[in-house]
């Protein structure tokens, strides 16, 4: 559970988590195994189609939340189920405590429920004098440790068998062998006794099917079956977003939930309870059944045009499974109650701003969560939106406010960058390519020394454009170049390499609109949404899309931001909207442009025979779904050699790496280790940020693997 009050404390906690080697290793192994497991589970299925169907059906249900609730209530009550609606977490807890009292219940056996975690139900019931025992093995373990879950589906994934054995020794008052099958059997025995004694069973619910008034439960252990069978009272605590009109809706989600959660085709048990069933432990042989629906902000959320989509979440936990940050720090530092990417967002809505304000900053924006989400929730964007909202409420930090102000004024920004060239002189290394140490006004020097940062180039690309602009007599295509700040001011050679390759075809008229500015992603990352909007508007006005066939950029982050974020950022600007759509539509990355559009032939290159690895920038492989083009492009001039985890983030994330250097450093180390294991001479990538990060890391650790933009590696072999 996230408890830090100051950002420094949070950073400290994050660093401590990074030091937890057992957890790191467990999450790492899982992350790798999960990828294969999930792919196998979905083999032969139209996953995208399924995700779209789920998203649509959930959206429909969210829109009709009140109506569905009323229908469910009517249906269930006609069968003798008591249905309640709790406005707040506190109210839900009070209702459940009252049910216990009215039915003279003393002992509760609980099947896993994230909703009950959300309301802190156990604490409340225990304060009312009830004994509550969790029956899901992982939940039971963390309950006894007084912790919250660290994963939505595997709540105790952060613990080792030795920790569990010690814990069980305490419970059983017998020495325990740290052998997993034995520990599981001990739990089986201990918990069986708890089911026998319990008079109330509490479960969550994966589905509340309106057409039949049915509660659907998905478990592997079967604990939900026992907990809803043996005690004479059953209470299901259900978030309103679980209401689903038909059985078909539930079956559809069931196709995705276990596959996306753990790579299982289906869980061992799926239980559908309709009405109060036979219960021979009850006086009249009939179960007392209550369903408590929880609002806790859901109704309000359902009406929010942007955030309603978070209610689509089916609680599979996949967003954590693929998150490179979660993989390093675990759920207790990457969530409050709900964990992972969805947890960062839900924390804000269900547990408040104070619990969420540091968490939302700790997103590297790699997009892995969005790609894997079973309900197609745009998680990274919503995390940024919340970051911006919190800053609007709490006041903007001086640094990000300044950055926002500077970026909004292109001339000032560019003058500053040019002046930095002189300002950095005293800090530059002898060869002038890297900064020796950083002026402390910018950041804490020692935190950043895991990588060497480049100096500003002597001449910006924009200042060279006039002299290098290729002459093309009969162009078949007109293309605007968008450089982004890094390639403009730090790595102009990457732009020049691209110009050289494109010019070699003699068919493309290239233009570099001078009024273009930073794409605005950095300020968006810092929660400065207003500045991001203004910079976006400036760029759309600077590059008139009607004049060009394509707007080409060699920076994956810029490309993805221009293409996908601009239409969202400028959605309230009715006058500009058609232009923005046209603009976004024409944005293309370098590799796709030369490979797919120009179809440049490998005959143009002298093959080098060099083994080249590839790092897939997050914003290219997931942001733009460009996967084959860069690899095939490399292969035209060199030998592309696959390496492990090519699509996992390098940890750059722009300002993220300045704010969370410890995480950035660890991600980079992993990236470099994977590349080194490939026995390669150079690494190609297509984002200057990734070049900066990986090249800087290689340099700082004295490794002699070259890191270059795909364009550079191609240009050097151009015939």
């Amino acid at each position, binding site marked *: 559970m996230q408890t830090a009050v100051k950002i420094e404390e949070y950073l400290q906690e994050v660093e401590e988590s990074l030091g937890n080697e057992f957890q790191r290793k467990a999450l790492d192994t899982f992350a790798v195994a999960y990828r294969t497991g999930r792919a196998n589970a979905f083999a032969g299925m139209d996953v995208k189609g399924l995700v779209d169907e789920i998203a649509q059906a959930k959206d429909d249900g969210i829109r009709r939340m009140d109506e569905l609730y009323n229908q469910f209530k009517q249906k269930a009550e006609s069968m003798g189920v008591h249905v309640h609606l709790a406005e707040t977490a506190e109210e839900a807890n009070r209702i459940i405590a009252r049910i216990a009292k009215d039915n003279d219940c003393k002992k509760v056996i609980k099947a896993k429920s994230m909703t009950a975690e959300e309301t802190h139900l156990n604490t409340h019931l225990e304060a009312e004098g009830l004994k509550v025992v969790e029956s899901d093995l992982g939940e039971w373990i963390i309950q006894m440790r007084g912790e919250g879950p660290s994963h939505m589906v595997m709540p105790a994934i952060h613990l080792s068998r030795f920790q569990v054995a010690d814990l069980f020794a305490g419970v059983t008052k017998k020495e325990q062998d740290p052998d997993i099958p034995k520990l599981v059997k001990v739990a089986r025995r201990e918990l*069986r006794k708890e089911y026998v004694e319990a008079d109330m069973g509490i479960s969550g619910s994966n589905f509340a099917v309106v057409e039949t008034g049915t509660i659907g439960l998905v478990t592997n252990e079967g604990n939900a079956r026992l907990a809803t069978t043996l005690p004479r009272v059953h209470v299901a605590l259900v978030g309103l977003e679980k209401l689903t009109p038909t059985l*078909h809706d539930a079956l559809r989600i069931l196709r995705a939930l276990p596959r996306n959660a753990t790579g299982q085709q289906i869980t061992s048990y799926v239980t559908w309870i309709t009405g109060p069933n036979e219960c021979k432990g009850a006086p009249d042989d009939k179960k007392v059944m209550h369903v408590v629906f929880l609002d806790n902000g859901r109704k309000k959320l359902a009406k929010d045009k942007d955030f309603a989509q978070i209610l689509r979440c089916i609680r599979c936990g996949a967003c954590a499974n693929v998150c490179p940050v979660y993989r390093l720090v675990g759920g207790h530092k990457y969530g409050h109650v709900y964990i992972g990417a969805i947890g960062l967002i839900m924390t804000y809505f269900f547990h408040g701003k104070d619990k969420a304000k540091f968490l939302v900053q700790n997103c590297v924006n790699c997009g892995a969560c969005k790609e894997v989400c079973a309900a197609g929730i745009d998680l990274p964007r919503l995390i940024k939106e919340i970051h911006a909202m919190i800053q609007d409420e709490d006041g903007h930090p001086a640094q990000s406010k300044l950055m926002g102000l500077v970026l909004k004024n292109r001339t000032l920004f560019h003058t500053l960058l040019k002046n930095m060239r002189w300002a950095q002189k005293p800090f530059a290394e002898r060869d002038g390519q890297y900064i020796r140490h950083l002026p402390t006004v910018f950041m804490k020097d020692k935190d950043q020394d895991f990588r060497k940062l480049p100096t500003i180039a002597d001449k910006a690309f924009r200042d060279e454009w006039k002299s290098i602009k290729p002459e093309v007599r009969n162009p078949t295509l007109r293309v605007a170049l968008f450089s982004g700040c890094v390639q403009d001011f730090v790595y102009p050679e990457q732009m020049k390499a691209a110009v050289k390759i494109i010019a070699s075809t003699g068919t493309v008229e290239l233009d570099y609109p001078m009024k273009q500015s930073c794409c605005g992603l950095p300020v968006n990352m810092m929660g400065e949404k207003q500045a991001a909007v203004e910079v976006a508007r400036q760029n759309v006005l600077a590059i008139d899309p009607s004049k060009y066939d394509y707007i080409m950029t060699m920076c994956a982050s810029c490309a993805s931001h221009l293409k996908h974020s601009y239409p969202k950022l400028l959605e309230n600007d009715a006058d500009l909207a058609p232009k923005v759509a046209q603009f976004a539509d024409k944005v293309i990355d370098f590799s796709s442009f030369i490979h797919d559009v120009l179809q440049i032939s490998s005959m143009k290159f002298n093959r080098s025979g060099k083994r080249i690895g590839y790092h897939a920038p997050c914003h290219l492989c997931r942001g733009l779904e460009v996967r084959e083009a860069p690899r095939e492009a490399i292969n035209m001039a060199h030998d592309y050699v696959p390496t492990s985890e090519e699509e996992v983030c390098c940890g750059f994330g722009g300002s993220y790496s300045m704010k969370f250097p410890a995480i950035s450093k660890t991600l980079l180390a992993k990236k470099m280790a994977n590349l080194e294991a490939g026995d390669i001479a150079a690494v190609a990538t297509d984002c200057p940020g990734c070049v900066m990060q990986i090249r800087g890391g290689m340099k700082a650790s004295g490794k002699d693997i070259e890191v270059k933009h795909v364009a550079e590696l191609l240009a050097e072999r151009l015939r």
Partner: protein
Amino acid sequence: MSQEHIELFTKKAEAVSAIVKRIDKLNEAYAYAVDVCLNKNACQLLLSGCENAISDEASDLCEAKAADKVMAAPKLADDQYAELAKAAEKAGVKLIADGLRNHLAGIDIGFAVADLGLAETGSLVLDSSSEDLRLSTMVSEINVVVLPLSKLRASSYEAEAELLPMMQKAPNYLAFITGASRTADIERVLAIGVHGPLELHILLWEDA
């Protein structure tokens, strides 16, 4: 039912550690269940936990276990039950049809006939509205379930038209059962039989 679905069902069920056999007549199922029962050790349920270092209170429950080998077959048709009882008696296995609440420490075999099968996931569908059936499929250490092949469907979608009326007849307690009870909550190591059966045997019955 197509051979393809039978093969898919078998493959998927076996992938989650179920034991799948083909039978021609129901009598074979009775003999099979009795045989499985005889081949396991009564009250030395090696995987059930009693032999481990459990608390004194939890072991009290083990004491409650019957000394005989016990098989439960609630909700079986009368003639079927009579046949199974005959086979059980001959082998010295005690057969019960109800009162499963008195056996919460565990029984040896739970015997049932499935209502539907789902090939896509290797799942059995059991209308478990009877508490005794619910319990026998949970507290038994080995679950033996007959799936009439006439009831095998390609997927949950294909079975939907049959599932819906079952769920509409309230009250109802419907179960999809796929493999044995399992957990991976400790270090993600797969462990079978955490709360429910340690083994699931599925007998595919050519009933048509």
